[in-house]
């Protein structure tokens, strides 16, 4: 076989690999869509679960949104501040390298270990009980490194000239960051936060141990209330449901979860594409 034919073969092999690796998204979306569509009804979306696999999922939808909202409120500002430090202030020394290493370690931490830590530290030690607050804080531990990474990346793409221009006009470093760097990096940061929220809303292992059983029949009223969530609900019904009604509800909840997740991720990517086009790249 000569080299040119070989190259053609290799290339078709590569096509197959790419197709395989992205196939999972359409497959999952279509499968959930087809099976879950029949389950959607007004009663399902606004009702409460009862007798395990019957009823609706309103408390779970609201619970998931509360959990992710609170987690973002806690995690995103902290992540942004960390990223500003790492990108703009950090001297290249041992301490910075250590901080970076630990951030990476936290990013790679198995979610179940974070859940376990949340259970031990927040639920028992700080006596938050299994609650909205404990679940959201644990989730924010998980979200933190993602936000840091995305924000740092976004801050670093801001051209150096912007900073120089601002500093030359007499602005201090902090003024430059707040007035020039952050606004320029905002779309990138927003993309990172939205992608992080998308991951957080599908996270199961963390909320399993810290937020609640998953089948709560009531919307959480306070930060200390146990909170149901869509992923936990899906898990319970998928593995322990016995009736067709249970399976149908699991599909319906999966569809709702996938729709929320996709709307976050797609918005994130649209923002970034728009921003990259504006930068002319």
């Amino acid at each position, binding site marked *: 076989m000569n080299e040119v034919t070989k190259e053609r073969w290799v290339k078709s092999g590569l096509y197959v690999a*790419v197709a395989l690796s992205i196939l999972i998204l359409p497959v999952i979306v279509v499968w959930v869509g087809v099976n879950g569509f029949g389950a959607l009804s007004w009663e399902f979306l606004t009702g409460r679960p009862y007798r395990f696999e019957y009823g609706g999922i309103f408390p779970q939808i609201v619970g998931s949104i509360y959990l992710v909202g609170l987690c973002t409120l806690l995690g995103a500002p902290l992540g942004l501040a960390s990223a500003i430090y790492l990108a703009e202030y950090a001297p290249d020394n041992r301490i910075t390298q250590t901080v970076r290493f630990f951030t990476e370690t936290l990013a790679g931490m198995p979610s179940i270990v974070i859940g376990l830590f949340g259970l031990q530290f927040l639920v028992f030690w700080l006596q938050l009980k299994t609650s909205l607050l404990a679940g959201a804080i644990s989730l924010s531990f998980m979200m933190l490194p993602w936000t840091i990474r995305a924000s740092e990346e976004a801050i670093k793409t801001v051209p150096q000239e912007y900073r120089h221009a601002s500093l030359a006009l007499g602005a201090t470093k902090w003024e430059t960051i707040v007035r020039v760097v952050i606004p320029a990096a905002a779309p990138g940061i927003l993309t990172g936060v939205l992608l992080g929220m998308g991951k957080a809303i599908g996270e199961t292992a963390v909320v399993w141990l810290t937020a609640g059983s998953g089948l709560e029949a009531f919307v959480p009223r306070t930060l200390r209330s146990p909170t149901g969530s869509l992923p936990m609900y899906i898990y319970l019904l*998928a593995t322990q449901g016995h009736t067709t009604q249970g399976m149908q509800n699991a599909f319906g909840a999966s569809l709702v979860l996938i729709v929320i997740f*996709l709307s976050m991720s797609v918005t994130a990517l649209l923002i970034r594409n728009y921003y990259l086009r504006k930068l002319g790249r």
Partner: protein
Amino acid sequence: MRSEDIVSRILFLCASFSAIVVFLITLFMLREGIHALNWDFITGMTWKPGRNLFGIVPTLVGTLTVVTGAIIIATVIGVPSAIYLAEFSPFWLRNIIKSTVEVIVGIPSVVIGFFGLMVLVPFIRDNIGGRGESILAGWVVLAFMILPNVITLTEDSIRAVPRDHKEASLALGATRWQTIRRVVLPSASSGIRAALILGVGRAIGETMAVLMVVGNPEVPWIPTSILDRVRMLTSTLAIEFSYVEWGSQHQYALFAIGVLLFFLVTILNFVATFVIRRRNLK
């Protein structure tokens, strides 16, 4: 003190928060797990909480079997995909594929597990044999879970190869594939290795999707066939924590598994960082 200094200190405190969390996790895991981290735990062949037997070997072997298979599948599919993205794909297509991969990272793992349970498991049961819930199912599900990470990191390291290396090879008359195989891949190899190591770390820590398809027998054994059910370290934690008696030896043993997971993942992370740093020095 100048206000700029105060700002910089506050930001430093925020940046150290991740390190503090990691430190606290270590502390809390060890404080409980230390009571069960003994020779019997590490070499024990039986896990029967009811009889106070907490041997980790079958679970550890099960986990490593599933992870090894998954990383092989992810490499076979992921590395070629990354080569395509970095070297062959037109800009617009690359953009679409990369965005898709980024979305895939976030697909709720419980939904992937649900798919595995409803489609993959019956498929294996009907066409290959066994109960369906098996190592094989774990391989497939886990491979797809870590694939996006492998692709992204591998592509980054391929793109980091300096352009003039490639151009020199092409100018000598090599085809693109020859260039990739003889020039690009060797010089990206340490980055690819780091990507795979991080993939292994991801795979060890994955919980929900795998849990739903590997069967998790009550008393795990050392698997002898790829159709055997196994138990993962992570699924043991997730399942048994819902009914463990607080303060019992069982609880300590579960925390010991947490310690084990934590150290496995941290060591892999450390090795990957080291591999990348050595490349940068070169």
